[in-house]
């Protein structure tokens, strides 16, 4: 069980800037101090602001919107943004309020992406730790399986998984987990290989500690730093991935709001002379991705400085 709580530690930290609900209790002071340092990096602050904005929208989606995301207002289909009336960001072909769909889409994205990341990190850390610590045939087995997964083009892998199991939030999570964990595993394996030769690991071995204890208690906490930065970057990629899935029609099944799906619906109307919905949804995706990337940059900056 200790294994699991530790696996999630980096995840908690990575999410912390936006939710700040579950900071690492042991190092609360250290955590607050690092967050204070983050303020010195303008990039990170922009990232945090953007992420906080979307998190706020996602949490209070039903407060900040007037219409149900799936409610059709046939009296007002294909309204332009800022054209007056209640639909300030306009409506789509079916008369659904774009702002409502965007807000509820944020909720969907910000639930699916972090959940997928936690799962991918859990699997990736287990794979990487085992491969790096034990080496030999364990390493060979895990690394070759990872290579096989990584050798598939990502999109094709998703199409296979989703078309076999069907489109649903759970299957998106499974697909992202399977696709991302080998990459995480490689990073963790590399970090483990570096750390396992340190003297405190030998000291633990000499006092007869078990492999699981050494991996979870001695090694993992020290791999935390690079993993947190990686998690932030990867969160951005995951959001893009979810967008792509939606765009390909492999995202959340309609009519649930989904940013990628909105881009797809909007794209169909670009030639018809109304590109605004595709643009709005694309801006939503890009802003969140950029937000995570800027935060990752900022974290890297403060972690290399000290």
């Amino acid at each position, binding site marked *: 069980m200790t294994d699991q709580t530790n696996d999630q530690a980096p995840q908690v930290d990575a999410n912390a800037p936006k939710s700040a609900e579950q900071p690492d209790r042991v190092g609360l002071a250290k955590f607050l101090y690092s967050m204070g340092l983050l303020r010195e990096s303008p990039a990170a602050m922009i990232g945090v602001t953007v992420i906080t904005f979307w998190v706020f929208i996602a949490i209070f989606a039903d407060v900040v919107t007037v219409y149900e995301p799936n409610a059709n207002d046939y009296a007002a289909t294909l309204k332009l943004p800022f054209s007056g009336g209640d639909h300030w960001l306009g409506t789509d072909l079916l008369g659904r309020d774009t702002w409502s769909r965007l807000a509820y889409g944020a909720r969907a994205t910000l639930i699916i992406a972090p959940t997928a990341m936690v799962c991918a990190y859990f699997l990736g850390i287990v794979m990487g730790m085992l491969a790096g610590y034990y080496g030999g045939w364990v390493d060979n087995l895990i690394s070759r399986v990872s290579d096989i997964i990584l050798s598939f083009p990502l999109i094709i892998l998703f199409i296979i998984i989703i078309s076999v199991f069907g489109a649903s939030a759970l299957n998106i999570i499974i697909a992202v987990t399977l696709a991302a964990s080998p990459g995480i595993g490689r990073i963790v394996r590399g970090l483990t290989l570096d750390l396992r030769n340190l003297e*405190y690991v030998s*000291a633990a*071995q000499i*006092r*007869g500690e078990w492999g699981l204890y050494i991996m979870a208690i*001695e090694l993992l*906490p*020290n791999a935390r730093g690079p993993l947190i930065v990686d998690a932030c970057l990867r969160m951005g990629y995951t959001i893009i991935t979810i967008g792509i899935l939606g765009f390909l029609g492999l995202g959340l099944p309609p009519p649930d709001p989904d940013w990628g799906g909105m881009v797809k619906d909007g794209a169909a109307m670009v030639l018809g002379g109304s590109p605004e919905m595709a643009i709005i949804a694309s801006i939503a995706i890009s802003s969140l991705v950029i937000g995570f990337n800027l935060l990752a940059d900022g974290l890297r900056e403060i972690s290399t400085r000290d």
Partner: protein
Amino acid sequence: MTDSANDDIVLELDNIGISYFTRVGEIPAVPNFSLRLKRGESYGLVGESGCGKSTVAMAIMNYLGKNGGIVNGTISFEGRDMQTMSEEELRQTRGSKIAMVYQEPMSALNPSLTIGTQLKEVLIYHENITNAEATERSIQMLSDVNMPDPDRVMARYPHQISGGQQQRVVIAMAMLSNPSLLLLDEPTTALDVTVEATVIDLIAQLREKFNTTLLYISHNLGLIVKVCDRAGVMYSGSMVEEGTIEELFKKTKHPYTFGLFDCIPTLGADKHTRMLEPIPGQVSLPHERPPGCAFGPRCKYFKPGVCDQGDIPIEHIDHGETHRARCLRVDEIEHVPANVGSEVTVSEGEVVLDINGMSKFYEISDMSLSAIMSGQSKHFVKANENLNFEAQRGRTIAIVGESGCGKSTFAKVLTGLETATEGEIMFEGTNIGAIPVQKRDKKLIRALQMVFQNPDGTLNPSHSVGHCIGRVIKKFGIEKDPKKVRELVGDMLDVVRLPRAFITRKPRQLSGGQKQRIAVARAFAGNPSMVIADEPVSALDVSVQAAVINLLNDVQKQYNTTLLFISHDLSVVRFISDEIVVMYLGQIMEAGEADKIFQPPYHPYTEALLSAVPIPDPDIVQKRIRLEGEMPSVMDPPTGCRFSTRCPRYLGNLCDEQEPPNQDAGDGHIIKCHIPIGELAQVEPIFNKKEAAE
């Protein structure tokens, strides 16, 4: 120091202040520093880490990095103010007029260029000569640094030559454009002692030949004695004492310099006759320097109201030309040398560890086609071969040897991280040679613990001190209840003389010496019957080293533990150990009581080792024995005697063909050599007092 001598002054630092600018603010690394070097002089700068030695060297090179700067004072080189030079002039000066040799030869050389290319580049850049001329001069310089086969070395890459040879290349590179000033920043610290001795000889030779001024930076007082005419002792960014070697070592005036001497184990002294006296406390951080004397808080002669008032000038002593010290109480202080150690005779105890014919071979498979065809795809690296010795309870046995001699492999086999290939290791009646640590029972694991070398790697940075020691107590089932565990951890902190409040600290909040104390506490927490200490003090500053050695001694006495002390430092070994085992290429060359090892008869290898140790005493003359060639690879060791390829007393075919016998020189003193004991006993001792030698 008169005006007429000014022409002869190569480098003059006049009251320079060097600061680093960080987020926290300005950090005055070196507040006020003056230095004058005359042409052809060799000057040593000594001090512990963090005292600003390297900062001074970097300032001379005008290479302080983005956040460093010279805030006041002037640096003039050959009469010119370096701060007024343009960037281009500076570039021309660095590398051609002022050259520097760094500590790590491997990182000073570019691994992707051949040595020839790197050497020639210096000449082509600075002197604008043709490639052919540059090649010729590079080869000439390589032979000047005694590099065997310089033509072939030119075409090699840095990783293809040994560490000692790499350092020779770095020195050759520095000397190529015939600089008038050579800065050497710990040039031999990364090298083995016998290699170090040859590099030191080389530097002395080159200096004579090219009349170069040397600024030699080191923490090792013994080296300074060997290579320098004058030396300065730095403390916390200031020069505290300066003088000729004779003045500094024989008429020491500053309490810090005394302190340094009291920390170093001198040859001939051991733990029964002398105590090491560590300097209490730590170097204060640059932005937290106390008013008045920076050494004040650690000085036992500190006098409130005198030493903590205003800046203390550095004054000439006894109207001498050269000897200066920064201390107000120079004339009042009468230094009493370190107190005498406790005379404890270690009784002949029961045998805890008995090693019989233990060997550890690593199998290496060579998968090249030719190797498979010839049926020799499997090689054995004989890391340890046929080791025999025993250790009694409560005694300290030292294992000495240069890198690659197999001493760390031996520690791994003992702790069960590796298993022995042959032979037996009887530890408290159990043969543990073939049992890996996972299969050892708790009692056995608890009885055999280890202290590691690197203070930064020995503690997990993520866990507190309390967790680190407490885990041992819980793991070995001494106590389970968290409250009592905490109590026991506190007791262990008392044992290693650290405040109990340290229980919540993380390793990054501790200094190197404190980390090493925690490591000692961790090793002793399970009350083991034997502790292996693998180079436990070699990464520490001398003052801290002394404290850790004393601590190991005391804790060992308190727990009546057998200590297996692995080290390359012969003076530390002489001080701490009761018995010494000398290893070379996986075999024991000589073993016996500590004082026997340091007197004839010597094994020829031990003799060379002893001759190479730098002794911080200008009165002691060592017989000069230098080893030729490089240590052979463990993959392909010499047949017959392992030492035969480098032995100064090589007898001929006998040594090549037959493994030498273990000869008994009496009282368990074993020498593995073909030369009869009687003949070995006839050599004169390595260490002689100067008077005796004249």
